[in-house]
């Protein structure tokens, strides 16, 4: 499943895309430890697979949470750490 967490407001659209079918097969889940804002958490999905998602209280502030990481590197730290290439950004 492609899960898009985030929002659109007057300033733009800010979604992090996670391919949860790839997460379910990933034992590493490097995105969790590499995100300085601790945005990623694991949860059992509706089919009892352990998948990664964005914590609920952070979904409407991604523009500010990810700002430093997005401006500093070629690739976001979470996406760089994701060996399954399961993470993408809409901005």
């Amino acid at each position, binding site marked *: *499943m*492609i*899960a*898009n967490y985030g*929002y*659109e*407001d*007057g300033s733009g*659209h800010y*979604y992090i895309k996670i391919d949860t079918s790839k997460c379910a097969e990933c034992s590493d889940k490097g995105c969790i430890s590499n995100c300085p804002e601790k945005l990623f958490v694991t949860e059992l999905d*509706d089919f009892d697979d352990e998948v990664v998602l964005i914590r609920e209280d952070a979904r*409407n502030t991604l523009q500010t949470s990810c700002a430093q990481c997005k401006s500093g590197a070629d690739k976001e730290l979470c996406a760089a750490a994701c060996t399954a290439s399961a993470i993408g950004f*809409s901005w």
Partner: protein
Amino acid sequence: MAEIEKIDYWRWTESNWKNPEIPDWHGKLITAGVDIGSTSTQAVILADGVPYAYSNMRTGSNSPDSAISAINWAMKDTGLTLEDITYTIGTGYGRVNVPFSNKTVTEITCHARGANYIYGPTVRTILDMGGQDCKAIHCDEKGTVTSFMMNDKCAAGTGRGMEVIANLLAVRVEDIGEMSFQIDEEPAPVSSTCVIFAKSEATKLMRNGWTKEKVLAAYCHAMALRVVRLLERNGMEPDFAITGGIAKNIGVTRRIEKLMNIKALSPTMDTQIAGALGAALLAKELVEKKRAKENI
């Protein structure tokens, strides 16, 4: 002094229903789904996988109480008690607050499953327009979610936004759709990014002499534009269906159809019960799987 009648224009009609074609539930597998949303709560009861009864009411300040009220209203006149329900799934933002549920499932999964039942297996894109959020969901022929995108950043584009405009213009929320077409020409939309801006814009337009119908058209247009952006971002694949309370508002749904150049499927049931219906269907499938395992 003459008494002034106080009307809550935003209040939509609560309802309950019992299937007249199922006179007796005894001997059938009874499962239930309860969807506690930010604005409305629904309870659906299935008898052998067929809708037997449901209720649709406003969510109160206490979610567990709302769940109990909804299931009790659905069970009214059926002779059912909670003990007769084999399995219950809670869903919606308040899903963890259904005191009698056996399991919780996200509303995304339940809405897709419910829409698959209401609209049939050809539905691939579902737009759920809820009380305080809006979701674009893709699913396969079994109603399993393949992708989703939601926006709950602002009440604009949601049922709550529509309620605010209903109260502002003193128009019953259920009349907005029809009224929004009683215009000569489609006006430009009001702000679609913030319901507060939209409200002040609507007030200004009224002061400028716009009719209520024209303001409603501008608001419905704005709401349609907002959800179309969400649909386009997540991708549109026919067949297309709309669930949630706003699905009953033709002022918004017809404008979405026009902007997307696609006709939405016609619902065969109340579009607000899709989430609870999906939960009840998943409950049935879980019971059957468990029973099949025990028989092996």
